[in-house]
């Protein structure tokens, strides 16, 4: 162990420069995690350098946090400590694409946009639709399992990943899963690492399954008169034989930017919108659209085909709810049983009215996720805002779900838990963390229960 304050990272800087080159060490870090700006930022160029950096940190007792495109650093807790930030952007590139076998393998620092473009060039779909795909990376999406609107059809991130490579906190390289659809050779470590917020290791490469490009893609925009009407139409779709690609509700505050994006009639932009997307054989898509269209009470809005639908998806993924329409202080994600999303949205609207808060939200209605932006942006009273978010969290937990803060933790009172009280299974999670990272060197305190 080095003498003196272990958190004084000025001396390690020189030795890190020896490992990765002077230009790959920046002081202080270019970005902060919540209000904590690490003294150093290191940008390894490849897996070998990453391994060296992790091993060095482990030996020297330096705590490291990790980031790819830094689009989700507002998710999760404030690091318990962080001597340096490791950026994975140097580990970049599509390692392999096998269009005929429907698989793609990419290094952690590759952007989602690049993976998507490569898949599309090969006539395939990359089935991950996270926020800010131009900056978000493969590794970041793997570590957070972020999935967006088209997740209704694609499934969760865990459903489209075949295998991954990672570095354990001490720099040991490991590989799990593979490139086949089925694989039960050993524990499903791939699932353990996906969504683990980098507390068990650093993902360095992921193999995804690809989907064939559908013949047609159509997105219907249905203006809603109320949440209750949305619930009825969505229940009708889920109970039918139709298989939606997208089933998403935009709150009134969001509807304006949606309609602006599609060049739709601004008169329709006053209330809630339901977006229903279908993809597949042209005949099946046509039948799906006309079936929904024929249901009583379904008002017809714009119907977007192929490229126009793509443009709207791009707008949806560029900002969190409220990001364009109002000043947002806090963003949160509620995950609930699919049938409960409506009650959560209603509760949020009630709360916003009572507490004079601004509110925007989007409901991923097929997946049981509600993303909410809560304002105003200038927080006069953090305690009052904190009480409101805590109120909503209790409502979400009563319906069997969880509420996580995904932005603006610093606007909430000190000590506000980004994840909420952990469920009892956290004990096993702690035991796993203790074995993978006994000295708590990697992303300490970022995850559920302060893991």
């Amino acid at each position, binding site marked *: 162990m080095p003498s003196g304050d272990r958190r004084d990272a000025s001396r390690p800087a020189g030795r890190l420069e020896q490992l990765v080159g002077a230009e790959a060490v920046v002081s202080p870090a270019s970005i902060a995690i919540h209000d904590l700006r690490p003294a150093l930022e290191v940008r390894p160029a490849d897996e070998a350098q990453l391994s060296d950096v992790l091993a060095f940190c482990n030996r020297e007792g330096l705590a490291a946090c990790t980031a790819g495109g830094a689009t989700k650093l507002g998710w999760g807790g404030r690091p318990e400590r962080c001597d340096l930030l490791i950026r994975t952007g140097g580990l970049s590139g599509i390692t392999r694409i*096998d*269009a*005929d*076998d429907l*698989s793609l393998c990419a290094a952690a620092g590759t952007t989602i946009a690049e993976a998507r473009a490569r898949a599309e060039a090969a006539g*395939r779909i990359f089935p991950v639709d996270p926020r800010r795909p131009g900056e978000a990376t493969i590794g970041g999406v793997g570590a957070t399992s972020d999935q967006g609107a088209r997740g209704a059809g694609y*499934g969760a991130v*865990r459903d489209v990943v075949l295998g991954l490579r990672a570095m*354990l906190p001490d720099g*040991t390289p490991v*590989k799990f899963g*593979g*490139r*086949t*659809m*089925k*694989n*039960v*050779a*050993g*524990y*499903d*470590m791939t*699932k*353990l690492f*996906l*969504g*683990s917020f980098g507390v*068990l290791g650093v993902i360095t490469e992921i193999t995804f399954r690809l*989907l*064939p490009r559908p013949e047609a893609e159509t997105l219907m925009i249905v203006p809603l008169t109320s949440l209750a009407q949305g619930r009825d139409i969505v*229940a009708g779709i*889920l*109970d039918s*034989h139709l298989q939606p690609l997208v089933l998403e509700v935009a709150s009134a505050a969001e509807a304006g930017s949606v309609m602006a994006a599609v060049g739709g009639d601004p008169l329709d932009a006053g209330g809630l919108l339901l977006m229903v997307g279908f993809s*597949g054989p*042209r*005949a*099946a898509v046509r039948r799906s659209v006309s079936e929904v269209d024929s249901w009583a009470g379904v008002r017809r809005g714009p119907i977007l085909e192929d490229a126009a639908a793509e443009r709207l998806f791009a707008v949806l993924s560029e900002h969190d709810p409220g990001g364009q329409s109002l000043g947002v202080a806090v963003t949160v994600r509620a*995950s*609930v*049983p*699919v*049938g*409960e999303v409506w009650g959560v949205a209603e509760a949020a609207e009630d709360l916003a009215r009572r507490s004079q808060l601004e509110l925007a939200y989007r409901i991923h209605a097929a997946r049981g*996720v509600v993303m909410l932006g809560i304002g105003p942006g200038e927080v006069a009273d953090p305690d009052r805002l904190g009480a409101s978010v805590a109120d909503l969290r209790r409502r979400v937990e009563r319906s*069997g779900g969880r509420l996580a803060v995904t932005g603006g933790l610093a606007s909430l009172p000190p000590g506000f838990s980004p*994840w909420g009280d952990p*469920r*009892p*299974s*956290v004990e*096993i*999670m702690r*035991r*796993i963390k203790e*074995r*993978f990272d006994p000295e708590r060197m990697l992303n300490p305190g970022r995850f*559920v*229960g302060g893991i």
Partner: protein
Amino acid sequence: MLSKALLTELRSIVGRDEVLDRPVDLQTYEYDAYGERSLPGAVVFVHSTAEVSAVVRLLAREGIPFVPRGYGTNVSGGSLALDGGVVIEMGRMDRVLEIDVPNRCAVVQPGIFTFDISTALEPFGYYYAPDPASVKASSVGGNIAENAGGPHCFKYGVTSNHVMGLEVVLPDGEVVWFGGKDADSSGLDLTGVLVGSEGTLGIVTAAILRILKTPETVKTMLAIFAALEEAGDVVSAIVAAGLVPATLEMMDGLTVNAVEDALACGYPRDAGAVLLIELDGLRDGMEEMAEQIAAICRAHGALEVRVAQDEAERAALWRGRQGTFSSITALAPNYMSLDGTVPRTRLPEALRRVSELGRSQGLDVYCVLHAGDGNLHPCFLYDEKVESQKEKVETASMEVLRICVELGGTVSGEHGIGVEKLPAMHLVADENDLRAQSLVKEAFDPRGLLNPGKVLPGGEAAVDAQR
């Protein structure tokens, strides 16, 4: 042998008649669908989560190993109790606890036959998608432990993609829920880790399963080929064309004849291979997709493409597929069924090399494949009483797995490692990979009491001692 005092304590938990300890009774539980035998110390029938917890607590106190068991259909020895451990028999926990249509899930106990879940869901217009060939004989708890696959995985994924939450009794007897009805991502995906852990991390006592709407239309086709390689090419071509049938199942000519001998389902005896293709979904566009697939089959030399005209014809085709394993294994005293998986583009090459291997070793290979997933089940028949046959088959089997790994695949697609494939784990995992996996085992089961000697190589000595 368990002590009288311990047997009495176990009986006080589960009931007097619910603990077996006489050797003659235990023999029923000394094997599963894999060939090896190992006599358990006792068999305990459990009826509730509380009983499982109490039994586990007691065994943990005594330091006696234990293994959960459903109906013993495991083909890799995963349900064997090594070291004279206790079998915890889950079959009596076989109820559907809840069908929750608004939240698109069902809650079931682990001992239910997997087929019965869909039967219970049928009145609601829903079903549970994973359908291993043993769907009528295996329990869903076993399917969860093995991350079972089945023909419909090609479109719908494996068991893991359909399990949302689990109630688990940990190896110290504590009861805990992983996951739930929400698609929660706050926390490690312990549900994902439990599925496929072969009953070595925890005992599942209830499961929340995703349910799907029954498809509007199903279309089942049988394509007949003169040669196995042609059928392999067709599978690659269908996948490459971007078509997603619900199933793409293949069997070779030897298997077709074995099935016809046993079941007479109307498969053509002179075929070199057949492909069983099923489409499902909306009826709109399905006819076109069926024609496209038929055209690909014909372009690759299909002798005939039959379409099942009614439910009876469809059922006959599926009866043949589901009966393949029993039809083949009835032909010889012993069998070795493999479960290698390759990227689908490598399927024709894998088939060619496996056939060559069989020829060069003078072994008959019966080949059944979940071809859409690149999952091969070559089956070698032999008689262990004939000298050197067993070793020959074991050597050839290892070679098949080596071929699969060489082609970018893996050693098990759905059967699991159990005790059978412990040595083969080294083909896909190096020391670092295995060490990382053992950290997970240690976190769940620091004393190594739950189903020891499985999945992770290192405990093989225990099995050898049994032989």
